[in-house]
């Protein structure tokens, strides 16, 4: 079992080891077969931001939502990189493109029903997508608004009850989307919650967030925000129509907003009902030592792949970071190993050297700022600072979330950059306001603890979203570094026009190297997730679409 936690430097090797490991564990005696029944407990140190399908845009909420509602397509219920594959869910296939991928057609399966027994029709899916345009229901994924014809003027079904003409429902089974540009991976976008059906007569507007109608194996019995969510079986869900979800436990109870240390300790102890519990989030650094040294605990540790890259964002508009030499110096000075230790050491992932993580199509091995063990190259950093005329150092402000982890990462940056004379002041921002603050160009300081997870396992929802200078807005900005390069912008347009997704991925990989030379961000960690589960949990694996968290749709309990 030793290769389970050993991380190969060549990522592919590491992945193979993990897959082999998961395979052997499923057959091994330590975890029995998952059976139907029982109550699965989920201990979460985070909150469910939104359950409303129009607003659900956070991976943990999406993982939970997969138990409650179905979407046109979804991600495959498989461990490792295979989980990135898109498979049909409510639809019979992953969508049929026509008109050069500007028109997409889906057909619904027979026998799919809401929790009240009403059949799900294409009009319910259309209504669900239309809701994502309503200004009252913000925060959802932007793709419907970006891509559908007329999406720039449509204000959702409350203000425009006539509906959006570019979504056609010729009959109850068929839905057609007309797009304003070719989108090769629209079938992947259709796995996002906003493509879930919503019955119009049961839409309670903003209140729908607390009680979305079920189309999946479970319905909400009780929801106390930031405290507890209790799910019970939806008897109208027919497993024969669903090849993805297993729906094994009779009940699923989520305890929300627990202290991360409390979650770890309860799962380490595994007493009483906690034996049938899984953690929502990876173990903290403090628990790593106990898990590694205890074979019984190590056996209960699930290692999940992720396509999340963590990086330090450098604001390219603020002096002296507007000088590329200074940014390169920071890239050399950063102690990536210390930042990884803060997150739990090697178990938390691999030291990142490129923007695109190894699990993502288009990844090409590269390291423009090499150093021994990722601890930084102080001499090279100092030389670059001297070239920039800043050998005496300078002061910057770093935006970091005010969580314990955020502050610790901030201090690691502070200590690393201090080695080359850069004085870092940490500006701690409450976690809920963090992203909206650094997304405000007037409020973002010199640097930020940052990261990005693509919406599906392809680079198209990564590089263009955060490095295209034409998308910079004063608020709600994703290009936190305010990186501007006309050459890069031009290349984005060329790649977007490519019809072949594989060619596009390779092109993105080459472009990533070009962007990396300008250092708008310094990648430091490619995440992995190490999750503890209780001794009675079976069939648990980390899912790449949910940043390595346990796939809730398939996990169960053993006898």
């Amino acid at each position, binding site marked *: 079992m030793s290769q389970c936690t050993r991380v190969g430097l060549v990522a592919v090797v590491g992945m193979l080891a993990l897959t082999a490991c998961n395979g052997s564990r499923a057959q091994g005696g330590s975890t029995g077969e998952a059976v139907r029944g029982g109550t699965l407990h989920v201990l979460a140190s985070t909150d469910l931001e939104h359950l409303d399908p129009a607003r659900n845009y956070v991976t943990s909420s999406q993982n939970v939502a997969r138990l409650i509602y179905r979407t046109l397509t979804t991600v495959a219920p498989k461990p490792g990189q295979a989980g990135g594959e898109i498979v049909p869910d409510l639809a019979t296939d992953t969508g049929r493109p026509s008109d050069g991928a500007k028109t997409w057609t889906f057909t619904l399966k027979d026998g799919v029903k809401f929790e009240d027994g009403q059949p799900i029709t294409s009009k319910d899916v259309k209504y669900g997508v239309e809701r994502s345009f309503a200004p009252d229901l913000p925060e959802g994924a932007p793709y419907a608004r970006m891509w559908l014809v007329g999406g720039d003027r449509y204000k959702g079904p409350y203000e425009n009850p006539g509906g959006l003409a570019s979504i056609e429902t010729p009959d109850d089974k068929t839905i057609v989307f007309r797009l304003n540009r070719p989108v090769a991976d629209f079938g992947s976008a259709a796995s996002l919650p906003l493509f879930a059906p919503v019955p119009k007569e049961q839409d309670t507007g903003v209140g729908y967030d607390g009680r979305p109608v079920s189309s999946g194996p479970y319905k909400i019995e009780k929801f106390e925000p930031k405290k507890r969510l209790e799910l019970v079986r939806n008897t109208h869900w027919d497993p024969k129509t669903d090849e993805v979800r297993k729906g094994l436990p009779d009940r699923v109870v989520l305890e929300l907003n627990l*202290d*991360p*240390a409390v979650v*770890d*300790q309860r799962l*380490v102890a595994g007493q009483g009902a906690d034996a049938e519990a899984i953690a929502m989030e990876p173990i*903290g*650094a*403090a*628990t*790593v*030592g*106990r898990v*590694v*040294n205890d074979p019984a605990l190590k056996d209960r540790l699930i290692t999940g792949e992720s396509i999340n890259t963590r990086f330090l964002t450098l604001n390219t508009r603020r002096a002296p970071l507007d000088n590329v030499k200074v940014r390169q110096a920071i890239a050399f000075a950063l*102690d990536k*190993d*210390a930042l*990884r*230790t*803060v997150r*739990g*050491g*090697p*178990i938390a992932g691999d030291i990142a050297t490129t923007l695109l993580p190894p699990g993502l199509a288009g990844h090409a091995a590269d390291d423009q700022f090499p150093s021994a063990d990722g*601890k930084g190259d102080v001499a090279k950093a100092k030389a670059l600072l001297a070239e920039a005329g800043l050998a005496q150092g300078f002061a910057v402000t770093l935006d970091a979330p*005010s969580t*314990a982890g955020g*502050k*610790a990462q*901030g*201090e*690691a940056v*502070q*200590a*690393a950059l*201090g080695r080359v004379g850069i004085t870092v002041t*940490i*500006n*701690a*921002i*409450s976690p809920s306001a963090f992203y909206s603050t650094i997304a405000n160009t007037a409020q973002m300081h010199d640097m930020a603890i940052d990261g990005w997870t693509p919406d599906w396992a392809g680079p198209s929802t990564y590089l263009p979203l955060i490095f295209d200078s034409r998308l910079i807005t004063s608020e709600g900005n994703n290009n936190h570094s305010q990186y501007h390069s006309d050459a890069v912008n031009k290349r984005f347009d060329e790649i977007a026009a490519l019809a072949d997704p594989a060619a596009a991925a390779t092109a993105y990989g080459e472009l990533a190297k070009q962007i990396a030379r300008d250092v708008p961000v310094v990648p430091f960690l490619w995440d992995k997730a190490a999750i503890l589960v209780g001794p009675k949990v079976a069939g648990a694996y980390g899912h790449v679409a949910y940043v390595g968290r346990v796939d809730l749709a398939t996990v169960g309990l053993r006898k």
Partner: protein
Amino acid sequence: MTVLPITRPADVPPLRRLLRQPSAAVALVVVVLLVLMAVFAPLLVWTSPTEFDSAAVDPALGGLPRGAFGGISAEHPLGVEPVSGRDVLARIVYGARVSLLIAVLATLVSVVVGTVLGLVAGFFGGVVDAVVGRLMDLLMSFPSLIFMIALISALPEANREALLVLVLGGFGWPYVGRIVRGQAMVLARGEFVAAARALGAPRRALLLREVLPNLTTPVLVVATMSIPGYIATEAGLSFLGVGVRPPTPSWGQMIASAVPWYAADPAYFLIPGGFLFVTVLAFNVLGDAVRDVLDPRSVRR
């Protein structure tokens, strides 16, 4: 049970009376040592409290300190912080500066504000008294901890240390004010003030020359008694994440960051926790002793 008559020779100076109690003497020594440690921090430790030592922790174990009892070694006499490897002794010593300075300054603020307002209220009475009285009622019925946290997190750009002093002092002064007001009322009606007034002394002179000196004792008692409370509250606020900002060390912050580690590395919370406990205890014992010595109406002797 009979109550023994009190024997307290008035001619013995207060400090000597204080030192006659062994517990008070020990507490005083502890407090003096703590103050010396805080003042001479740079002479006591050569390691910087913010310097990372990645060799002292084991990344494969999530950054657990290498070695027993939180990584205690010749280089790090009290061990190191998990993950970062920062020296615990250095953080304790520099953290003492923060804790003591904030507590003393907050006490100063509450004593000055409380004395001035309490004096004015008690001496002049009437409308002034009513207003100050209401204000004190108000502040004392505030859910102060919640409010302090909200207030401090509302003003992130300001100087945290100064803010902590002001907020702690701002919520603490009514406890001084109440006592001063009561005493001032008694004194203002007392014979010698009446006599002074009869002799035509102006009000301000009365306040400064007659009433204020008589308040020294009770104010000193409240001040000594309130220091441990401020130390604990400052640590509590740091514990809840609204104390001094990193990387400035503070005991409360150290304990807060030790919460996830208490099972894996108990030394990391026991050491700052022990220092905090001993400090608060020493100030409490000293406060009790000062009250017993100075306050003639005190029953605990």
